[in-house]
């Protein structure tokens, strides 16, 4: 991989590297620093990201900017109702010269895959991608092919109430570490947006601030971020609350609890905390539990942030 940046992480502080990355992303995606940091945290925690929002708020631009900034190979898959699994993972084609089948790798073999409007494809196509995400490998015609490392999927989806969607089932949603919403920009940023350059031109000016090796190294650092007993108490209190409180249809699963901790560890890492703080949990919690926790009854329409805030307010920090 030809990377202009030094490959040794020790030469630069992860925090500085991340800050530089976020600063550069900020130039493209205006006024969304928190979401950007969540994206990076999700990436560092080896998770996959689901961006749910209405079209036109910059989901694709975000994914593209991330790929450029992180120096990752990038492929975009536009999910449509006629998308086939082979369109995602690749296909074996008979080659006349050699007289045998050769596997042509699909777009999923990139380091960063943008699955655009994932809920417009049929469940069959969806599960092809989601299986690849889970297994980090693809099996075709009896052969197993490893995916790239790092491997990061950003899926976008339109809100479920839009027409022509196949909503992801809960079990599939669980594959995504975080789900974020971009939302409308603030008035001031929107103004800048209107006045400024075309985003696509801006993208071309971006340079990689991180090498894939640095990214991989940082990914290995995430599980090592210290989580104290006090913090684990807090995590368990949160999990217990979601299981015991009557307003949720089902509580957080152990996998969700691990996801929460991993995300918080990544968040602590990029914010230079000595260990995971309750605030780290609080920062990532709405994105981690928003798509996992289903409020009962009428409250369904509430946004992830609201659900997360409700959980956080109910659980005291020990």
């Amino acid at each position: 991989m030809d990377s202009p940046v030094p490959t040794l992480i020790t030469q630069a502080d992860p925090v500085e590297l991340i800050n530089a990355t976020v600063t550069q992303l900020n130039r493209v995606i205006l006024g969304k620093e928190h979401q950007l940091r969540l994206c990076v945290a999700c990436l560092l925690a080896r998770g996959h990201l689901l961006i749910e929002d209405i079209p036109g708020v910059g989901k694709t631009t975000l994914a593209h900017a991330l790929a450029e900034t992180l120096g990752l190979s990038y492929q975009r898959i536009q999910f449509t109702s006629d998308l086939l699994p082979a369109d995602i993972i690749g296909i074996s084609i008979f080659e006349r010269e050699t007289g045998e089948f050769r596997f042509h790798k699909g777009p999923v073999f990139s380091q960063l895959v943008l699955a655009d409007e994932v809920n417009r494809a049929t469940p069959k196509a969806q599960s092809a991608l989601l299986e690849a995400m889970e297994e980090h490998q693809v099996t075709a015609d009896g052969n197993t092919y490893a995916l790239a490392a790092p491997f990061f999927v950003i899926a976008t989806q339109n809100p479920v109430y839009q027409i022509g969607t196949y909503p992801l089932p809960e079990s599939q949603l669980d594959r995504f570490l975080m789900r974020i919403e971009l939302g409308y920009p603030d008035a001031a940023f929107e103004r800048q947006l209107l006045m400024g350059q075309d985003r696509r031109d801006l993208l071309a000016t971006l340079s990689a601030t991180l090498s894939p090796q640095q990214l991989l190294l940082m990914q290995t650092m995430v599980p090592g971020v210290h989580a104290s007993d006090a913090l684990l108490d807090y995590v368990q209190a949160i999990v217990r609350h979601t299981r015991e409180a009557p307003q949720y249809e089902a509580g957080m699963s152990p996998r969700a609890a691990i996801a929460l901790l991993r995300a918080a560890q990544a968040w602590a890492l990029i914010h230079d905390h000595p260990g995971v703080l309750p605030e780290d949990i609080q920062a990532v919690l709405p994105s981690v539990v928003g798509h996992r926790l289903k409020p009962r009854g009428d409250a369904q329409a509430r946004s992830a942030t609201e659900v997360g805030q409700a959980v956080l307010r109910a659980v005291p920090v020990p």
Partner: protein
Amino acid sequence: MSEVAVAARPIVARRAPLSRFALQLTWVSGSFLLAMLPHLSSIRWWVALLAVTTAGWRLLIEIRGWSLPHRLIRTVIAIAGMLGVLLAYRTLNGLEAGTAFLVLMGGMKLLETRSTRDLTVTIFVSYFLLYAGFLYHQELPWLPYMLVTAWLLTATLMLIHQRSPMSLAESLQRTARMLIMALPLAVLMFLFFPRLPGQFWALPAREQAMTGLSDTMSPGDVSELSISSALAFRVKFEGDMPPPRERYWRGPVLHDFDGRTWRRPRFGYVERPVIAFGKSYDYRMVLEPHNREWLFPLDAVTGWPQGTFRTADFQLLSRRAVSRTTSFAMRSSPQYRSGGPLPKAMQMADLRLPPGRNPRSLALAQQLRATVASDTEFVQAVLQRFRSEEFFYTLQPPKLDTDSVDDFLFNTRRGFCEHYASAFTVLARAAGIPARVVTGYQGGEFNPMNDYLIVRQSDAHAWSEVWLGEDGWVRVDPTSAVAPERIERGLADAIDATESVPGRLFRRSTLLLQMRQAWDAVNTFWNDKVVEYGERHQRSLLERLGIEDADWQELGTALLVSLIAFFALLTGYLAWQFRPRSHDPLVRVYDALCRQLAKRGLGREPHEGPNTYLARVLTQRPDLAAQLNEILALYVALRYGPRLLGSQLTSQTSRFKFLVNQLRV
């Protein structure tokens, strides 16, 4: 199917583990028998045997899987037992019959035990039985037994009421904790439960032989008593103690002599005055029960408590036999003279000798009296005779024939104090001097641990008193002529080293002596502070607490108030014990910080993490930025950061504490 069949068939070779109920039954029966043990000395043997048999039978039934005895059989046994008690004790009422009946019924209850409820009833009967044991045994050595058995009973009670099986060890552990928690309550009840004055609580006297002086004295009686080192009484003096040679503790005074045995007459004389001079002593005597009415005041008693009276021969008698350890406050003057002329009747009685007995002694006395000028000189002459001739002081005197005094004076010449006192008194009477034998105790061992003087049965003594006209009754102790060490230093020093004497061992070993004294001090404490605790003590305790002249209503109020206080304290303690708190000192300091800030309206919301919280505080109080930022950094690092090394941890923790303490909001 076959499993069940095999288990049901009684196979001797293979011992099946006891069922849960059988185990419970074993413990309950064991506890019952242990509770019965203190009564073994008072109930008839067949009652105890019946109880043991029924317990064993019931266990066998359980182990072997037999069926319980038919209702008819049980009824017959119960009625037979009841009749047996009725015949043996002539009543079903009263202490001994009641206890026997209780033991019997407890055993019978075991025979029909088939449910937890039955077991519980047996346990309660056992509690009752055990505590009835205090009616017989109030001595300290019994206390541990009673306590341990009560503990075991409680543990068994817990055991049989557990749904899930529980080991006895665990149950013992739990009940121990419960009992310890209940201890303050028991102490409160003991101290403040209203007690009635007088003898209302007194136990009925039990017919039981006890060691001690009797109202007769034959040769060998006192020396036999002297073998025992059992406690006779303890004395505590207010102020000085009289010297050993003045420590004559006066017991029964014997006037009637039949040639061999001295007797205390059944009748009394009119009260005689005592002219005391010299020093008088105030003291309190704690008398061990001896089931007789006489006390043993220091000779001669000049002040005595209510319920006792002094006789003409200066005995101090209680109106009731002393059947349990009792304390008496008394005053005595060792230097005294009996006033007034000797009444004719007393003179007659104290000159009387059995006709035709001890002729040689009578002759000797008359002959001796003729050679001296006065009665006083006669006394001196007799004592001189004991001193100069070959008389021996021994605990093992030879047997004497019917004319005991003659035999002693002219043949054996070996005797204990009663021999000398008896011989001297006979000689004096023969010489026409009114004389009598006084029995009691002489000396006593001082216990420096609690300043009590301990008088044992081995200090039993007998001496004479003669009427010397002007001087009145004069004490003459012929033993002191033969063995002056007996009076000055006690029995063990006076007896020849070849003879075994109680207490000699203790004189040789200081350690043993100290152990004995310590044990005695503990016993005294137990007796004075616990067994003897009554209305008077309660009153003085309440006066110390500022409640003067308490009646039972005030006592009840005091009890109630202390009970409420106790439960309030207990509740408080438990609430404190189970309060939501962190054992982490770090968290406590952080909580203190939050509380301090909360006083300024900057309280932490429960869901706020440290960063969020202090950031919010800083928006309100930017002046605290420097301090709070350092506090925050330390707290976050200590609480959520990786574990620090020992020294670093200590220094950072103390820095954190220091900063929080320094912070003035």
